[in-house]
């Protein structure tokens, strides 16, 4: 098998008509094309949901502002949260996973290519449904447009009486559709990583990105499913007159909270573990050292995966639980900080004594390390019940989770973009524009989310469309809104860089970073079949072994 030879097709500009090329993208089952589709789709929604955030920030820039009505503010708030979680961060992470996992484990495609395409189109259809609500949400009642129930849609806001028209139905069905897609992606990740590895790549020799995505796959199938189940119940309530969350017929609004957060908290780790995976690949390459504590990283990730299913009710301290319930969820919430802390020390250990190259991907990863640490610390503060009673539902919480999602996940994502852009496009990005993006974005990020903690401590509740002057909140809201514009400028530079480099960038070559994992052994962009010959690996850094036959890794592992 290993001696087969394949004639390499010469890669030239595709001369076929545009319709034919587009058709290729629609019907494709190739993991690279689907990965890029996921990423482009998510970038589109990043811009859409970013605009929604800007609208909210303009409304809050001064007290008693009349930029948008309270109703529109509620819709913007709901759509921003729902879009960013389900149609931006999740698809983009699935996109990177779909693109990179087969390349990193030396396979030619995912385990189930058609399921892969199905998952993407279900997710895409979900996003379409959600945004169709702006047009179709009126229904026959002429009431409501886009959903306005908040991204966690607590009962009884979703009941027919409080949510006439079809706005909530679009929200439910969108999450149901994209949930089916996510479960498909989770199944595919697990099957690919367990069953498609190239010869020699035992579980202990897989790149950390593959390991971490294996854990993500497991978390997706066990945590998205409860959301799917809860959405089915909500559909039964709204369409068939069921009473699951109808308190007047004996149903329970609190049950929805439990079901939502059983999904909701592991979801945070579904989003952040792939970010960990990017950092675990990028930091070693730009520190010129192998990852520090590989087995501990794997163990910590698995520990996070398990513990994340037992922390959900720390979102519900203010709802009221017994002291035993409170103690349990405080304990698990603090316990999950331990494996997370181990990871931070391992990345620092990888950088320690390395020859650090401050290229753009590494800059974003260093930003990630610093910000994710702070996000974790405010997380422990909020995970402590007495502190939570004081600050739950305030802007402090908003600042905390945006620190996790923007400061942590989005920074790691941008790092991943710059790191794998040469592989996906075949061209280098512009380093200067990349640094502009980094500095604009990090300044904007800190202006927005550092100062957002303060009005929270001063008592400003989240989800209000305006506020009274004279409470000491004005200056902080002004700074926060100014920061949002810095971030938007950073994103603009990023998009310009992507588009410009696609045409004018330097050709990247196979391995611009002198990296060590298998995706860099094939051409950029990789051919349809990924690898002409199935690679055989003997260590965690197969390309190091290839480049340094005198001192290979497998002698020491």
């Amino acid at each position, binding site marked *: 098998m290993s001696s087969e030879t394949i004639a390499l097709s010469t890669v030239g500009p595709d001369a076929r008509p545009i319709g034919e090329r587009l058709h290729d993208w629609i019907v494709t089952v190739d993991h690279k094309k689907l990965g890029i589709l996921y990423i482009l789709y998510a970038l589109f929604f990043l811009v859409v949901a970013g605009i929604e955030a800007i609208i909210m920030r303009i409304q809050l820039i001064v007290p008693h502002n009349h930029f948008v009505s309270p109703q529109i503010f509620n819709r913007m708030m709901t759509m921003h949260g729902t879009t960013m979680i389900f149609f931006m961060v999740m698809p983009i992470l699935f996109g990177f996973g779909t693109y990179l996992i087969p390349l990193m484990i030396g396979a030619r495609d995912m385990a189930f290519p058609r399921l892969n395409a199905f998952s993407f189109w279900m997710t895409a259809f979900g996003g379409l449904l959600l945004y169709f609500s702006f047009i179709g949400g009126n229904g026959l009642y002429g009431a409501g447009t886009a959903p306005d129930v908040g991204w966690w849609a607590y009962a009884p806001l979703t009941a027919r009486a409080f949510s006439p028209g079809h706005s909530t139905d679009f929200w439910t069905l969108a999450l149901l559709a994209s949930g089916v897609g996510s479960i498909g992606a989770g199944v595919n990740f*697990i099957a690919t990583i367990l069953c498609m590895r190239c010869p020699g790549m035992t579980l202990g020799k897989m790149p950390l990105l593959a390991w971490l995505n294996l854990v993500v796959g497991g978390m997706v199938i066990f945590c998205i499913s409860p959301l799917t189940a809860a959405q*089915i119940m909500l559909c039964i309530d709204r369409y068939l007159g069921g009473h699951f969350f109808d308190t007047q017929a004996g149903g329970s609004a609190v049950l929805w909270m439990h079901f939502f957060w059983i999904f909701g908290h592991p979801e945070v780790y579904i989003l952040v573990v792939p970010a960990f995976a990017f950092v675990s690949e990028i930091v070693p390459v730009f520190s010129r050292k192998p990852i520090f504590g590989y087995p501990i990283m794997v163990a910590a990730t698995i520990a996070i995966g398990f513990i994340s299913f037992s922390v959900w009710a720390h979102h519900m301290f203010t709802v009221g639980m017994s002291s035993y319930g409170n103690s349990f969820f405080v304990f698990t919430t603090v316990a999950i900080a331990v494996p997370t802390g181990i990871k931070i020390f391992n990345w620092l250990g990888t950088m320690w004594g390395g020859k650090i190259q401050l290229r753009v991907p590494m800059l974003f990863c260093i930003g990630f390390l610093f910000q994710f640490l702070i996000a974790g610390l405010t997380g422990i503060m909020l995970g402590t019940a007495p502190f939570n009673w004081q600050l739950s539902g305030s802007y402090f919480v908003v600042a905390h989770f945006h620190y996790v999602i923007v400061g942590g996940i989005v920074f790691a994502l941008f790092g991943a973009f710059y790191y794998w852009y040469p592989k996906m496009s075949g061209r280098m990005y512009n380093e200067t524009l990349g640094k502009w993006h980094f500095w604009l974005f990090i300044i904007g990020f800190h202006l927005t989310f550092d100062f957002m903690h303060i009005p929270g401590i001063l008592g400003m509740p989240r989800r209000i469309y305006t506020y009274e002057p004279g409470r000491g909140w004005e200056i902080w809201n002004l700074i926060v809104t100014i920061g949002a514009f810095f971030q938007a400028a950073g994103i603009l530079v990023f998009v310009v860089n992507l588009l410009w480099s696609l045409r004018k960038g330097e050709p990247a070559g196979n391995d611009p970073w002198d990296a060590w994992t298998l995706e860099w052994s094939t051409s950029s962009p990789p051919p349809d079949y990924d690898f002409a010959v199935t690679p055989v690996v003997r260590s965690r850094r197969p390309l190091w072994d290839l480049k340094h036959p005198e001192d290979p890794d497998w002698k020491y592992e």
Partner: protein
Amino acid sequence: MSSAAYTRTTAEPAWILPSRGRVGMFSLIGAECAIFTIFVVAYIFYIGKSVAGPTPRDVLELPIFSTICLLSSSLTIHLAVGALRRASMSAFGLWWFVTMALGTIFLVSTGREWHHLIYDKGLTVSTNLFGTTYYSLVGLHAFHVTVGLLLIALAMIFTLFGKVEPEHSERAEVFSLYWHFVDVVWVIVFTVVYVIGR
């Protein structure tokens, strides 16, 4: 085969990975378990919380016969897969058909039970919490039986046209995992709805 290739294969242990069909199906079953768990939790949580009748004790009868049918279909599909692996096609066709018949009997008796509940007892999804949770949980299971039966029927049609070969035995086995799962879920639903909840 050249001698060089021969020494290479003996020097390195064979590279065997788990079957992706089985791993994929087990992952899907994991996801389905989570969905059913949520519905079962909701059912148990709402036992006795209905503010109006009818109650489970008033209207539910133990579906012993259909339960026996469904559970024995697990055995027959196992025998069918075994026959396919041994390449005895007639035995495969017979056991596969029996599986389909048993599954259909189960589905028909669920339908009759629902008909009885709706038209004779006046219990619908919107009657009370018991109705909501009962139809949801039993309906979710019946939906899974229906999907399974459609796939079995498809394979049955292929069998009748002689398109099923012994090399398809792994696919049949992967499907049988799903069917076993549906049966195990019924054991839980039966216990929760007809034993604990009644």
